[in-house]
């Protein structure tokens, strides 16, 4: 039988469709620069990609995301077909458990364990949710997958549905990702048309459908239970968990919620085999992780590397070190509630356990590189400012406590810090971390706690000496007279606290300890010799 372009794809004809699609893809990619044949498929070439290992991003930038055949050409939907033909759901769960694929949305919970729990509950209705809310500012790991390879997510969700016995899935995607939404719509429609979603998938008895839900843009809606509230049409506030969501989640039914990257891993793990997957990364965290490296770094962008790669390798090897010839000082991992890791710990391998041990988190894979012009107190203030705004307001420690921490940090960066403020920060941090309801509050203080730990001297300089060692906090800058001074004495005459000394026609000096920072000298200087630093 010869199938035509728009025919249904079935378990039986998948191979034929793939082979024909592959010929077309090979033809299209022939001579395209930046893409090279590799290990039976393709890879992106160039120095930025050399040191990466692209598993999740395997197809991104290579296939046409709006053409399901190109996904099929590179092995797409063959894992699903294989399961539907030969595997019972229990085997899928067991293999996923053995793979130790840990959730890529932040917490690193073992995916197989989650699925096994939902599988255990024998009820007629279960749901699969793909968390594509990606609210971390500046992060676009998930967006890249959704835009570049949407079918890998659809296939991963269908596999989850088959494994746990769900026939309905939702993708909760940020409305601010119009292209991702568009690509997903196209992919879902195309999958329907070709029999890869909907009734009797690939000609089997299994039916599974996926609907899109657009997120309102609140960061907290990325939290699993708040997301479910939002899908149910309620205010996006995290729920207290009497039961796990894999037991009672969406509309009280067993629900699997996984991140985009987690789902994108699933088909390739099953297609290439769990042993292949276990060979990548570390024992604690097998596989790869996509990072979004931004900030004061030479090569910013998406980077996928095996778990266990050191921070050094990512920041220097791939990221190329600090931009503008400056010194890297620290890297913050894990999004707005991650910890700041000092350069001295850059030989730490990046995996869930190692990052936790040094007071940070994997989070969803954000990495912000900071250089010597970044004030760590101000960095902590910046991240806390974000969480204070994004707190849903439900529980006391997060709603009230983060606000107080922010007030303290604002005070300190304005040079109004007092003895006891650092202790108050530590104590609030502990309370908020230990008592908040959801992950947002439980991790909100991490940037503060980690910088207090690794960069305490910077805090002390602000509080005791009213100085910002990085010369970043505006209100702590000092007036200084440069060699441009002609010794006209105008500044000394206008200074209200008489703290400028110097002889006529000689360079003048400001006694910083008595300076009240009124700026009168700077205004009076005819040569612009007075600067703030």
């Amino acid at each position, binding site marked *: 039988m010869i199938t035509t372009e728009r025919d249904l794809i079935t378990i039986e004809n998948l191979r034929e469709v793939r082979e024909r699609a592959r010929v077309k893809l090979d033809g299209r990619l022939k001579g395209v620069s930046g893409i090279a044949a590799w290990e039976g498929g393709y890879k992106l070439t160039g120095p930025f990609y050399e040191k990466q290992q692209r598993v999740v991003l395997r197809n991104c930038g290579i296939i046409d995301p709006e053409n399901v055949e190109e996904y099929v050409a590179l092995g797409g939907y063959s894992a699903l077909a294989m399961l539907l033909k030969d595997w019972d759901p229990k085997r899928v769960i067991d293999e996923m458990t053995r793979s130790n694929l840990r959730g890529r949305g932040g917490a690193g919970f073992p995916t197989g364990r989650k699925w096994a729990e939902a599988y255990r509950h024998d009820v007629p209705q279960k749901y699969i949710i793909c968390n594509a809310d990606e609210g971390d500012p500046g992060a676009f790991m998930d967006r890249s997958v959704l835009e570049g390879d949407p079918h890998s997510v659809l296939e991963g969700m269908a596999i989850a549905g088959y494994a746990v016995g769900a026939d309905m899935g939702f993708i909760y995607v940020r409305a601010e990702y119009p292209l991702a939404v568009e690509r997903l719509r196209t992919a879902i429609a195309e999958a329907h048309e070709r029999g890869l979603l909907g009734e009797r998938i690939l000609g089997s008895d299994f039916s599974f459908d996926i609907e899109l839900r657009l997120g309102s843009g609140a960061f907290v809606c990325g939290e699993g239970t708040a997301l479910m509230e939002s899908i149910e049409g309620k205010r996006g506030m995290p729920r207290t968990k009497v039961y796990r969501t894999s037991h009672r989640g969406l509309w009280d039914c067993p629900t699997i919620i996984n991140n985009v990257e987690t789902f994108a891993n699933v088909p390739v793990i099953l297609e290439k085999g769990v042993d292949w997957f276990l060979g990548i990364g570390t024992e604690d965290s097998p596989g790869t992780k996509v990072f979004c490296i931004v900030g004061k770094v030479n090569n910013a962008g998406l980077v996928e590397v095996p778990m266990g790669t050191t921070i050094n390798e990512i920041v220097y090897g791939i990221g190329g070190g600090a931009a503008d010839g400056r010194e890297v000082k620290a890297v913050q991992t894990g999004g707005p509630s991650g910890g700041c890791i000092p350069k001295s710990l850059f030989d730490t391998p990046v995996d869930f356990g190692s990052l936790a041990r040094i007071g940070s988190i994997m989070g969803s894979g954000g990495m912000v590189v900071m250089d010597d012009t970044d004030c760590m107190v101000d960095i902590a203030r910046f991240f806390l400012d974000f969480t204070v705004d994004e707190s849903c307001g439900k*529980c006391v420690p997060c709603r009230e406590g983060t606000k107080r921490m922010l007030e303290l940090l604002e005070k300190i960066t304005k040079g109004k810090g007092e003895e006891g403020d650092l202790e108050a920060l530590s104590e609030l941090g502990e309370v908020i971390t230990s008592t908040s309801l959801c992950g947002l509050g439980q991790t909100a203080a991490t940037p503060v706690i980690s910088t207090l730990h690794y960069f305490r001297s910077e805090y002390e300089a602000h509080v005791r000496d009213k100085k910002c060692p990085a010369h970043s906090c505006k209100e702590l800058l000092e007036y200084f007279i440069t060699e441009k001074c002609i010794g006209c004495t105008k500044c000394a005459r206008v200074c209200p606290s008489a703290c400028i000394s110097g002889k006529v026609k000689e360079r003048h000096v400001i006694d910083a300890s008595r300076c009240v920072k009124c700026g009168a000298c700077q205004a009076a200087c005819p040569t612009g010799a007075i600067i703030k630093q």
Partner: protein
Amino acid sequence: MKNVTLTINGKTLSVPSGTTVFDAARSLGVEIPALCHHESLPVVSACRLCLVEVEGSRKLQTSCSLLATDGMKVQTETPRLIKYRRAILQLLLDSHPNDCLTCQKAGECLLQKYAYQYGVTFREHDGARRPAQTDLSSPYIVKDDSKCILCGRCVRTCDQVEKERQVLAFAGRGYATRIVADDDKTLETSKCVSCNRCVSLCPVGALLDRRIMGKVRPWEAEVRVKECRSCDYGCHFDVYYKDGKAVAVKARAPEPGRPLCLRGRLMTELLWLERPDTPWRKIGGKFVKASWVKVLGLQRLIDKMELLDAPGDRQ
């Protein structure tokens, strides 16, 4: 039903499976502090005061949402818990007006009670406080947002009477979160029916019964519970007596199948109070003073009774 056996503060007890640690503790006579939790409401675990320590877990758990399991060992008053409770109460007081002297809620306020119990006081600071915003539009309820601790009890109880009520909701987020009626209307212009469910469950003085204000304070009152006979539900009201005189009526927390309503409350006032205040009716989103006959809808009954009782009509 299956029972589970657990240990709380060293005492062992058996409870039906599905019982929360909070309730299990209560049945032992151990009171765990909680501001947002109430037996008539869904559990939300928002105030975080009821956190307990469970042996074998470093992570604290809210006892209101934690189901008792066999062999579980729970501590409810460890130094760590006390430290965190004090911190949480301090956070609440830091945003709260220092107004206990004249607050109508004093004496029955849960925030006051726990502050006393854990030795936490108001203090001066330069940071933010909840802005003063008082809704005096209703003759039945005073809503004072500056005292609100955002426990959400009012929202949940109002929500339980579907369609007819469901007036209150959270609005805004983070520190700016507030409780609003409809889309931030006043109680008068909203669809609030003045049933006072919310008032009866508010743990602090953020929602107060306006008709009791200035008349009597909880500790100087003798309170008698009365059942409303206005309809079959039979809701309960507290009648406050001062110096032997019944001066005010207040709705008690709603019970299953007992929704509370304004009519029942006014009926109770009329029956028990010597001089009840003028009643008000809401007509087209405006409160207007009304006669008792009107507000209780008795005119037809009275006319009919008068007609039937008229001597000429007797046979």
